[in-house]
């Protein structure tokens, strides 16, 4: 009990200091510095209408590469930790009729929606991460609806690696053409799509990278789900 009170006191001290510091950072005021530069130059420098996308893919591309890597580590790590000699699905009951027919009917549409989200990342809210998550949701439906369903690992794992290799390669092409890693060579060197800002075929390599990220995130999250849902067989340790 004493320890619990100590914990609460400790937490309250932290909370007090955070609140005190936040008091000096008033809510809702314009304190933009670098952000202002982004908003003013985003269209000419990257061709994207959605400034968040431009920041994520272009200006702070290293963060995004790192973020994709983190997810890759998670999927690899989960696979490494839950690796057993023999594993299979152990669900006994099929999903209800609503779920099975729903999964069959909706699957293409969910996939299509995911693809739509990540291809239009530079125009509308969304992008590779929610798009990939949507695709993973489609596979999640399949897992829940059918007891024996399993993704094809022969295709999925190399696809995951291939998308990552593609991302790094796009960056390295930038290094070769423009002299900088992750340089947007399509927009800044070739100038493709300068005349149709605000439409699909613009914004340089953002759609390409977001497609790669979408595939990667989709396969990785599906891989995590797959590893979590399969249980080791008896004596298969």
């Amino acid at each position, binding site marked *: 009990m004493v*320890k*619990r009170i*100590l*914990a609460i006191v400790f937490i309250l001290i932290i909370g007090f200091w955070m609140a005190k510091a936040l008091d000096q950072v008033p809510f809702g005021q314009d304190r933009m510095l670098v952000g202002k530069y982004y908003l003013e130059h985003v269209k000419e420098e990257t061709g994207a209408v*959605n400034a*968040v*996308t431009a920041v994520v893919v272009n200006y702070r591309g290293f963060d995004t590469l790192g973020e994709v890597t983190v997810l890759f580590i998670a999927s690899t790590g989960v696979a490494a930790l839950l690796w057993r000699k023999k594993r299979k699905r152990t669900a006994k009951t099929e999903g209800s009729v609503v779920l099975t027919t729903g999964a069959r009917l909706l699957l293409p549409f969910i996939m299509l929606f995911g693809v739509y*989200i990540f291809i239009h990342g530079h125009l509308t*809210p*969304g*992008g590779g*991460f*929610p798009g990939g*998550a*949507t695709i*993973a*949701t489609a596979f*999640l439906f399949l897992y829940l609806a059918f007891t024996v369903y399993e993704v094809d690992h022969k295709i999925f794992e190399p696809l995951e690696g291939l998308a990552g290799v593609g991302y790094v390669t796009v960056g390295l092409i930038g290094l070769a053409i423009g002299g900088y890693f992750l340089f947007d060579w399509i927009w800044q060197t070739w100038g493709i799509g300068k005349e149709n800002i605000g439409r699909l075929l613009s914004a340089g390599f953002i759609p390409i990278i977001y497609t790669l990220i979408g595939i990667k995130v989709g396969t990785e*999250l599906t891989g*995590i*789900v797959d590893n*979590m*849902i399969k*249980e080791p067989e008896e004596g298969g340790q």
Partner: protein
Amino acid sequence: MSDWVAIFIAALMVVSAIFAVEWRDLLAAVVGMAAVSLFASIAFFFLQAPDVAMVEAAIGAALSAAVFIFAINRTERYGSEEEGTGWWVKW
């Protein structure tokens, strides 16, 4: 008007967080956690961050709750619940 909305959402988040932490049924706790994420995603929408709202709803709420539920499925649903401290401080 928007002030009241903000207060309402904030209150919902805090309440569902408290429930998530205090419910003994782990499945309910996970649902509470997903609710926190969901309300947070609504808050992001009001704070003019639609991109973040989408990601939070899709990844933060749905998928992480799903992963939690699979984990509960492979472990146990009702944990013993006496409280204490000091597990990580002890050497």
